């Protein structure tokens, strides 16, 4: 099992302790609210709290006072975040008593709430986002950011809704999305779900691992490990398809279309 070690000395803040909620979704600018539950992390009362919103090359930073005295900024509009995207958030607790600002606690890649109500499990694992530069493509999986995102072509009416809930789209597209995501996790050696349970690779491994017959991905240094891992991915995609009865659902839609 591959494990990563943290030599920085900073504490990890579970994302569940700093939930972020977005407002004005689908408008620009977005605004946000954040709650802090940091009391038992034993952080210095003088340490500063910063909340950062970021996406691609846009970034904003807000000061929320100190651990001992929260100060909520009255203006939390994300005016500098590129329109049409959902930013991720980062909460930093910084000790500035020394000359350099040292990060003593951190929560990163916080996916905000307030988006996509009604599709909780799917959306916490996979984000759907408009894209203007897909050309003739309908969708594309983007794994270059902090969270997996299905980009959908904004030239298609209602495509966001289609990507989230249209059974034909889900049946045809999502198995391949699952395959690509798991392949990415395996390729980048992020296969220990205990490493970071609330980062997206850990969440995805827990999600697929809980399905019948899937379990944890094979790991080790055997020569055959690559094949075993590819087989595991295929079994996970199969289990995913079975869980949501994708074949039945799709055939049902075809019959309905013929009537």
């Amino acid at each position, binding site marked *: 099992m591959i494990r990563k070690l943290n030599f*920085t*000395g*900073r504490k990890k803040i579970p994302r569940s302790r700093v939930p972020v909620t977005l407002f004005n979704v689908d408008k620009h600018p977005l605004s946000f609210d954040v709650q802090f539950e940091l009391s038992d992390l034993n952080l210095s009362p003088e340490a*500063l709290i*910063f909340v*950062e919103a*970021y*996406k*691609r*090359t*846009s*970034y904003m*930073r807000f000061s929320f006072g100190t651990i001992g005295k929260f100060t909520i900024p009255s203006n939390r509009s994300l005016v500098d975040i*590129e*329109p049409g995207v959902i930013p991720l958030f980062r909460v*930093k607790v*910084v000790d*500035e008593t020394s*000359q*350099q*600002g*040292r*990060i003593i606690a951190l929560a990163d890649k916080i996916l905000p709430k307030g988006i996509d109500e009604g599709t909780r499990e799917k959306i916490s694992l996979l984000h759907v986002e408009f*894209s*203007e*530069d897909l050309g003739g493509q309908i969708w594309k999986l983007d794994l270059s950011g902090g969270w997996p995102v299905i980009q959908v072509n904004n030239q298609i009416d209602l495509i966001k809704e289609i990507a989230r809930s249209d059974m034909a789209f889900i049946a045809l597209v999502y198995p391949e999305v699952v395959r690509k995501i798991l392949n990415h996790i395996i390729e980048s050696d992020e296969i220990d779900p205990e490493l970071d349970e609330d980062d997206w690779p850990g969440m995805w491994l827990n999600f697929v691992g809980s399905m019948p017959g899937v379990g944890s991905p094979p790991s080790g240094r055997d020569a055959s490990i690559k094949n075993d891992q590819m087989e595991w991915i295929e079994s996970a995609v199969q289990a995913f398809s079975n869980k949501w009865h994708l074949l039945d659902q799709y055939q049902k839609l075809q019959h309905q279309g013929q009537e």
Partner: protein
Amino acid sequence: MAQVRKLNLQGIDRFREYLSDLSENSELVPPREILTDSIYSEKVNGQAHVEIIKFSNRIHMVEYLSTALESIDSSIGAKNGGLWSWLSLFYFDQVCPQGLNGERKVGRDYRHILDKGYRHRHRHLIAGPYMTHQMYGEKTRLLLSGPIHQENRIHHELAARQEFITNRSIIEVADTLYFDSQQNRPKRGTLSKIKAGSLLRFIDVIRQLELTYDLYSMQAQKIISLLPDEFNEWGIFRLTEQ
């Protein structure tokens, strides 16, 4: 002097078609008539004027445009693609000059037509440098050095990384390390893959430091004081600990 306009969808299509044709016949004349033809271009909100002047370098260009465009929306979001594409066609002889044999080397479309996606938007030969200059003013001389018609790889390396281009102090440190004020150009070896402390190594080191330090709250000199000794030969002045 010309009134600034923006290409509409037909105008952008026409410009794109020209760029495509240019790759087959590099002596084709730019379709400048669409700059003022209302079928292909339209007025922008507000008034701005530009003229054909020979820019001595990229900084000259962005400084000129900063003044010329100050009364209109000159953001580089996707909705403003028509403006930047219009400017690219207006200054086409400078962003895509003819070589000695009369041929133009056009490159990818996103160098001339503002890309709607974020990945290549900063690579527009006018809008990319303009945006960087709007953010950081004179501290961008490292990123904006060089001729207009060539992409600056330093700009590309830094502007494509959110944690770099959004942090004024990191941009300032890069300027301190890699810009030769006397020669008014980047120092030799800045983009070397083997020289100690080069830009690519700087990017790696900053990414490491970000795991421990809140670089957004630090002044440039404080970040410099954290850099390992391999950067000493780039002529940095370190603050001593108080």
